[in-house]
């Protein structure tokens, strides 16, 4: 410790009455510069690898009018998800009942649980998710729902046109919600 003291200082009082030394230390502590250097390195390490955009594959079914070519869909195993305005998802299981009693509303956070519940309670070969988007749904909603299919390992799903009766139900539900 005594050694460090004498080397870092410019000079010490050796005794009473000694003139103050005019030499100043030329030693610069380079630690902060090295810190910044490493910070910049880590920044560039992370930015060079992460900038490649990924792609999501989508297969479209052929539009056929022949009933024998259309997929046989067991009604009880089907879960229909409808994408509406403002990231709202409507859903029903099986067939849509005439009085609309099984038409329910949810958001993107809960849709995963709904898909998983339906998946667990259905036979794997009957389970299918039907996705319909209305005119107010955004592209992000579509990609997010397709992502949910991959996350939840849903083997069969289809992106189809929405039926007019469903559009009416959605409008009615939106109207009821806004009046609340």
């Amino acid at each position, binding site marked *: 410790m005594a050694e460090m003291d004498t080397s870092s200082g410019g000079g010490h009082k050796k005794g009473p009455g000694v003139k103050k030394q005019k030499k100043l230390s030329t030693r610069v502590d380079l630690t902060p510069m090295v810190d910044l250097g490493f910070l910049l390195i880590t920044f*560039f390490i992370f930015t060079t690898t992460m*900038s490649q*955009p*990924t792609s999501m594959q989508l297969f479209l079914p052929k539009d056929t009018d022949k009933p024998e070519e259309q997929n046989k869909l067991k009604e009880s195993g089907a879960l229909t998800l409808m994408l509406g305005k403002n990231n709202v998802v409507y859903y029903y299981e099986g067939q849509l009942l005439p009085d609309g009693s099984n038409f329910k509303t949810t958001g993107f956070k809960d849709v995963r649980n709904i898909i*998983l519940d339906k998946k667990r309670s259905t036979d794997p070969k009957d389970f299918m998710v039907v996705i319909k988007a209305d005119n107010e749904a955004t592209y992000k909603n579509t*990609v997010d729902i397709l*992502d949910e299919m991959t996350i939840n390992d849903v083997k069969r799903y289809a992106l189809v046109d929405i039926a007019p009766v469903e559009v009416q139900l959605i409008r009615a539900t939106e109207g009821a919600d806004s009046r609340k």
Partner: protein
Amino acid sequence: MPKIKIPRKSTNIDMTAMCDVAFLLLSFFILATQFKPAEALEVQTPTSVQTTVAEMKNVVMITIDKSGRVFYSLSDDLGAKDNNFKAEVIEAVNEAKNLNLTAQEKAMFSFPGYYIGVPFSQLKSALQKSPEQLAGMNLPGIPVTDTLNNELQVWMRATVDVMQGKTMNLLVKGDNESKYPTFKAVMDAFKKNELFKFKMVTNPEGVPPGSELAKKARAESH
């Protein structure tokens, strides 16, 4: 304080060498960073858990921006001198729609970075501008929403005819805010031309922990 004092030696380490190495590494990474090409169209793509990297070669790119305008472009390697697919596409469109394009206007389409964002009625004047000039203009986009006149279908038809036999990477890059009807119209244009497989460009996203996909990934890696 310990009673026995350990004689200490000077701990001054010369940090010059480490500093040199740090700056060498920094210079390497600065030079190795590839900046994304400045895009004329600002598109914010949604995130997805997909891990396959988007391809850059032989790309037919359909871009949908946030107001629902549709743009069509081909990757620059398709405009190569000896195998100019771009020239063939513009020629096919010229004949199909009787646009009477001059050779110079057709050559402009093969220019790297050129993209189509106008209906056929404005195509002739749009081809007189360079990509930099296009970026400044407010293009209306290719009309797709009218089911009877889906112009993208004509473009895709020309592309399919020209690229017969060659593997084509069909990519759709849509903005988060664009609405579903535009995307549906783009898919219809593909379906009418028997294009059933395409990819959507997304940003990478982490797999949610505890989900089925995470379990599958763990099972596969073991």
